[in-house]
């Protein structure tokens, strides 16, 4: 079949950003960013298996300012991706499909992601200073 210039559906840049599309894009960005977290998980555990002189690299990196900033970003991405993933699975079984409930669950999901990130770091710091 000959290729012709057929009309295309409007692309992302045509639309005004909406909560639904923005949350969906962030979901994918978090997923891509979490790929680097998986690499860190791999590096962390491989160095732990390789010996103390190798594990020192992981410890040096993760306890640096860059390491802490990345851990904070990874933890938020993880909670966001998890909360939105749960939202997706409710849609998969046909629950929460009305426009209204999609907006309500979207706002709740973002709040839950921030809440869980805050809770995990808050408890972590609490355990750190009271151990």
């Amino acid at each position, binding site marked *: 079949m000959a290729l012709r210039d057929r009309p295309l559906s409007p692309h992302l840049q045509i639309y005004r950003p909406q909560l639904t599309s923005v949350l969906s894009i962030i979901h994918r960005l978090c*997923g891509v960013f979490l790929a680097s977290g998986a690499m860190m*998980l791999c590096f962390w*555990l*491989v160095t732990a*298996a390789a010996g103390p002189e190798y594990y020192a690299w992981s410890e040096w990196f993760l*306890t640096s300012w860059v390491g802490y900033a990345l851990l904070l970003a990874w933890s938020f991405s993880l909670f966001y991706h*998890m909360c939105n993933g749960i939202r997706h699975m409710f849609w*998969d079984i046909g629950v929460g499909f009305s426009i209204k409930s999609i907006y309500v669950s979207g706002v709740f999901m973002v709040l839950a992601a921030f809440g869980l990130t805050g809770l*995990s770091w808050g408890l972590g710091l609490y*355990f750190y200073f009271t151990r």
Partner: protein
Amino acid sequence: MRIQTPLARARHLGSAMEGPEHWWMQRMTSLMLIPLTLWFVASMWWLVVDGGFTYEALRDWLSGPISAVLMLLFVGATFYHLKLGMQVIAEDYIIGKVARWTFIIMITLGCLTGAVATLYAVVAVALGG
């Protein structure tokens, strides 16, 4: 003249009943990763309480059978889910066929390598090697 049948050309190009499997395994790994992620976060608290992320504390914790098995599941499900997700992104956004398949092959082999290396590391620590 083309001897190949249309079916042979369609195979392995996305519409040979492999879509449902991809979709289903993405959901199965998601479902698995919800409790495993919460366990992973709780384990990080435990490590903090147990003396920080030192070499000894980490190995001590990971050599327990429950934490080792859960970590194996977490790592396996994570890399599987990662491969599926990145493949969707490649299929959605990379237009050129060569570039798209190059990316998908790299993602597949990279995730396989990462998974095997990490799983081996967990087993090595758990068995004290």
